């Protein structure tokens, strides 16, 4: 993280945001992290794409969980 980042408490790098997007699947993020995440998403082009991948995975997991359960 560079010096500018350290001065701004709500700034996160893509790498940090990636970890937060993954963590959110298993735990509730603290409010400050939620806010930092939103702010980053608003200015970043890459991270929203990653977030959509995670959403697709969530959807996929739902299909998978029910797969074969209702094919009688």
């Amino acid at each position: 993280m560079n010096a500018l980042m350290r001065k701004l408490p709500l700034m996160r790098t893509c790498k940090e945001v990636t970890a937060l997007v993954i963590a959110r699947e298993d735990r509730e993020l603290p409010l400050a992290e939620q806010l930092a995440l939103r702010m980053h998403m608003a200015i970043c082009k890459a991270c929203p794409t990653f977030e959509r991948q995670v959403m697709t995975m969530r959807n996929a997991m739902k299909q998978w969980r029910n797969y074969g359960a209702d094919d009688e």
Partner: protein
Amino acid sequence: MPPQIPTDFEQQLVEQRSYLMRFACLQLRNDAWAEDAVSETILAALAKPQAFGARSQLKTWLVGILKHKIIDSMRQRQREVTLDSGSDDDSADPLEHMAFKADGHFAEKPTDWGNPEQDLKSHQFMAIMDACTQKLPAVQGRLFLMREWLEMSSEEICKELGLTSTNLYVQLHRARLRLRECLELNWFAAR
């Protein structure tokens, strides 16, 4: 008086066995444990046929029983279930394999997976999901499926297995990133 068992009830239970085995093997990552859990499930179903009402499908009812048997099984083998096999592979953070620049920004934009609503229901995709989960290190695979398949909360999993939340989150983080990578390579990039 023993309860009246429909003549084909036993037969119907046996027909569900392979589905239950797939479920138990993926979750427990140990064929012998899976055999036991499935046998116990079928025995429990045979012992209490009256518990199977018209309210649910046979498969749904059996999976409900199996989930409990799986949780029992993991609880009994707590330490074995959560012990890392110790391979180097398990301790790596997949985040380090992703393309980030030194300043923490993406070096390469993640690929757009599109909106594959229909594809996600396909038989082929389910086979990829099975394969990618099986490729996860055993501990990660078990914990991940407890979350996603048994639909347990992180708190419940920690309580059942005597894990710290930090430990659980590390394993789940790795499992999810590995799964993402596997799906990308074998499904989204392969089409």
